[in-house]
C-alpha cells in the first residue's frame, strides 16, 4: 500500500480491492492441539447443562422422594433392630 496516485479507474479500484481482500481474508488452520482441546471442552458437561439438570423438577422430585424413602427405610430398620435387641436384653 503506497501513497495514493490516481492511476486506476473506479472499476479497476474495486477489482484490485477484491483481489487484496481475497489475499488478506484467507482461511486459517487452527492447530491440531486447538481442535483437540476444543473437543475436550465440548464433551464435558458445562455449567448451563448442570443448571438445566437441577431445574428439571421431575428428576429432582424423584431424587428427593428416593432419598426420603431411603431414610425412612433406614430409620424403620434401626428401630426394629433396637426393639429386637432391647427385648433380648430384657429376657
Amino acid at each position, binding site marked *: 500500500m503506497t501513497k*495514493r496516485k490516481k492511476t486506476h479507474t473506479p472499476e479497476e479500484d474495486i477489482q484490485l480491492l477484491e483481489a487484496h481482500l481475497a489475499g488478506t481474508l484467507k482461511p486459517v*488452520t487452527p492447530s491440531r492441539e486447538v481442535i483437540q482441546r476444543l473437543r475436550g471442552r465440548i464433551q464435558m458437561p*458445562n455449567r448451563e447443562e448442570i443448571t438445566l439438570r437441577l431445574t428439571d423438577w421431575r428428576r429432582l422430585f424423584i431424587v428427593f422422594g428416593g432419598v426420603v424413602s431411603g431414610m425412612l427405610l433406614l430409620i424403620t430398620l434401626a428401630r426394629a433392630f433396637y426393639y429386637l435387641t432391647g427385648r433380648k436384653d430384657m429376657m
Partner: protein
Amino acid sequence: MPELEYNEEEILARASQGDRDSFGQLYERYVERIFNYVYYRTGNTHDAEDLTARVFQRAMNHIKNYTDRGVPFSAWLYRIAHNLVANWHRDRSRKQEIPLDDLPILPARGDHPEKNLVRSQEQDALLRMIRKLPSERQNLLILKFVENMSNAEIGSIMGRSEGAVKSLYHRTLLALRDQLEDQNLNLEGE
C-alpha cells in the same frame, strides 16, 4: 454433494436425540469454519478458541430445538457464533481494543508457513479497516472471502435476500475504497 447432505440429515436427527457421537461428527465438519469466522471477528486465537467452544456447547445444549426450516445447520451455527461474538464485543467495548500487531499469524490453507510469517503492511492496513466496519459488513466479507460462500448462502445466514447481500457487498467495497482514498493509500497490483 447430495449424499453428504442426506447423511447430515441423519446425523442431525441422531444428534438432536442426544447422540454425542453424531454431534461429534457435526463438530468435526464445522469446527474449522466456525473457528475461522470467530478468529477474524475477534482478532486473536485465545478468544477465538474460547468462543468456538462456547458456540458448540450452546449448539449441543439446544440441538434438540433445531428444526430444519430451509435454513441449513451451518447457518444456525453461524448465527450462534454471530450472537456470541456480538456479546463479546459488547463486553469489551469499555475495554481497550487489542492492537492488531498482537494478532497471531495462523497458517493459511495452501500457503507455505514462511509466507505467513511476513504479513505485509497492506494486509495489516486492510484488516484494520475491515475491523472498523459495522459488524454486518465484517460478517459479509468474512463469509465471502474466508468461507468462500455464495451470496445466497450468506443471505441464509444473515437473514437477507440474495439481492440485499449483493447490494450490501457493493456498498461495503465502495466504503472500503473511500476509506483508502481518505487515508491517501493506494492498493498496488499483485
